[in-house]
């Protein structure tokens, strides 16, 4: 049991740090949050820089064009890029972290050759069409229909919570191909070209006031059968295979960022006098314990993943439950530090506090996560 990095890992860290110090000053100015084409160009530009420096697809298998890096190197990469203030994965998220790995694992050689290199090179953006208005936590209840017509599927339905839909080239789409089969067994995975006729994208304004998501309406959209990854009606399994690419590193950057914010909170509290309140001070002390533990839990999960050859341990749901709650606590504490200024939308922490509200909902609500922990880890019976 140790927390030391090997000489090779330290060298990887040093080289990365050196590159970041040179690369980051050459980045163009950050686009405004509402400038979607600008955000796309910025995020793809960053991905291109990573690609040219040999850091693209760090966690992807080598035969898919990735670096096949160990979970520990991923951890170091995410830690260092966050500490250096590098751009987030942004518009590349679905391509790099979900659709890409799915195609790498389940696609044909032709599909891999067509779709993977543009993701790594920062040329194409993917979005995700999974959730529907009536299929949220119960994702497998999705109803968007795909009917075979010659060499095409004809797709009709609607998707929701689709980030970057306005600027995406492709959408990884889950559709129902067999309405009579049990719900998990009638689903198919398709790559939907976002310029196909019949697609309408409508921005969805969040409670933070910004349009971070979109609804996507599909009206008899034709998708070539060749765009199907995996077999017809096998899409649920195809999708779940990819979820196993998550090797305990999903929130590394965020935990690093939260620890930095906590330090900033303490500094601000000392400047504005709130630090003299022992209740507030100890609350921040508790949060320090919390985020230190979450960092250790991340290192634990990564070590477990590494030992098991990249197969994720049971730690993911445990981590997500604790982290999403801690993040909300952090920004509630920020409001306590700011006092009346916590109502000022021009304060960075005000918007962060609002966006933190999504953490116990997105990617599996805390309630669903508790069911997963109870049933899959603790072995409690499913409800009936």
């Amino acid at each position, binding site marked *: 049991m*140790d*927390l030391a990095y090997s000489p090779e890992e330290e060298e990887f860290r040093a080289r990365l740090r050196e590159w970041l110090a040179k690369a980051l000053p050459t980045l163009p100015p950050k686009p405004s949050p509402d400038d979607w084409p600008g955000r796309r160009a910025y995020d793809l530009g960053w991905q291109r820089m990573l690609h040219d420096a040999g850091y693209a697809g760090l966690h992807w298998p080598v035969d898919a064009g990735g670096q096949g890096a160990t979970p520990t190197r991923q951890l170091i990469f995410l830690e260092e890029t966050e500490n250096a203030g590098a751009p987030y994965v942004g518009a590349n998220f679905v391509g790099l972290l979900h659709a890409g790995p799915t195609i790498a694992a389940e696609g044909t050689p032709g599909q891999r050759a067509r779709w993977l290199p543009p993701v790594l090179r920062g040329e194409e953006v993917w979005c995700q069409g999974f959730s529907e208005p009536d299929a949220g936590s119960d994702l497998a209840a999705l109803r968007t229909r795909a009917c075979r017509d010659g060499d095409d599927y004809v797709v009709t339905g609607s998707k929701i919570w689709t980030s970057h839909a306005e600027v995406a080239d492709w959408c990884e789409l889950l559709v129902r191909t067999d309405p009579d089969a049990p719900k998990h067994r009638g689903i198919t995975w398709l790559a939907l070209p976002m310029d196909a006729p019949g697609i309408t994208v409508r921005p969805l304004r969040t409670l933070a006031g910004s349009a971070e998501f979109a609804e996507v309406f599909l009206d008899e959209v034709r998708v070539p059968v060749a765009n199907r990854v995996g077999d017809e009606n096998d899409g649920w399994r195809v999708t779940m295979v990819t979820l196993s690419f998550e090797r305990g590193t999903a929130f590394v950057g965020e935990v690093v960022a939260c620890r930095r914010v906590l330090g900033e909170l303490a500094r601000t509290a000392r400047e504005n006098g709130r630090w003299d309140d022992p209740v507030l*001070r100890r609350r*921040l*002390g508790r949060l320090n314990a919390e985020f230190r533990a979450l960092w250790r839990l991340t290192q634990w999960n990564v070590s477990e993943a590494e030992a098991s050859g990249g197969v994720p341990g049971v730690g993911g749901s*445990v981590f997500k*439950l604790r982290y999403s709650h801690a993040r909300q606590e952090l920004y509630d504490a920020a409001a306590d530090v700011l006092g009346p200024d916590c109502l000022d939308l021009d304060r960075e922490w005000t918007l962060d506090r609002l966006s933190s509200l999504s953490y116990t909902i997105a990617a599996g609500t805390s309630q669903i996560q*508790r069911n997963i*922990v109870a049933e899959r880890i603790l072995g409690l*019976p499913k409800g009936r």
Partner: protein
Amino acid sequence: MRFRLTEDQRALRDGVRGLLTRRFDREALWAAVAAPGLDRVLWRELGAAGFFALRLPEADGGVGLGLPEAVLAFEEAGRVLLPGPLVATHLAAGAVPGAATGETVVAAVDGGLVEWLAEADVVRGEAAGAVPLRSVDPLTPLHRVAAVGSPDSVAVLLTAAEQLGTATRACELAVQHARTREQFGQPIGAFQAVKHLCAEMLVRAETARAAVYAAAVTTDPVDIAAARLLADEAAVHGTRDCLQVHGGMGFTWESEVHLHLKRAWVRSQRGSANTESEEILAADLAG
């Protein structure tokens, strides 16, 4: 980075668990409740197994292992509610003759209290004028003293390890009960309200585990303060929830749940106050 148990550490943990399962099973636990007093034979067996001399250098007759191994052993002790001044005697190994082998029982002043004062051969700290309490925990006799004692960081961490063992055990007991106890025609563990209590117990225990193990590796006082806060929370909150899952049976004397809760309460009084741990962690942010 290999932040996981090594093969040797797993073997050590399993060895301690095996010893404690053999020598301090449920029957022994209830016998101890019925007839309070320290089992000196067991104490010497623990000494012979290296429980107290675990961190003592081999040159001094110890096992020569480190804090991570001690944490694993104390976690196991916490799981089974092993009674006695374990932390005080472990810390006295090498300093008090006979402590390492379990020949001498050593108690210590900690947090205004002394555990097992009357049974101890040696008491470390200023225990003059100690007044016995009617202890809430039937397995931990207590004396109240004026002196607070200066909290030793290793003692704080080993206590956190015991709390971690309790948190883990409480979760197991709750799950066992929830799987077998039926109401409304199904195991109560099939109800989400019960399921979610159990899931949160595991989340708190596993978060505390990461903090406790990391503190054992780094021995950083800030890490130890974090480990202490999270382990106390996991143990006290976890045993409370375990009691809740057990329903009315959890409120009875014959259920062992209350023994875990009471011990968690006793341990959370050790060391300095929780607020001091919070201040250590706050000061770290201000640095």
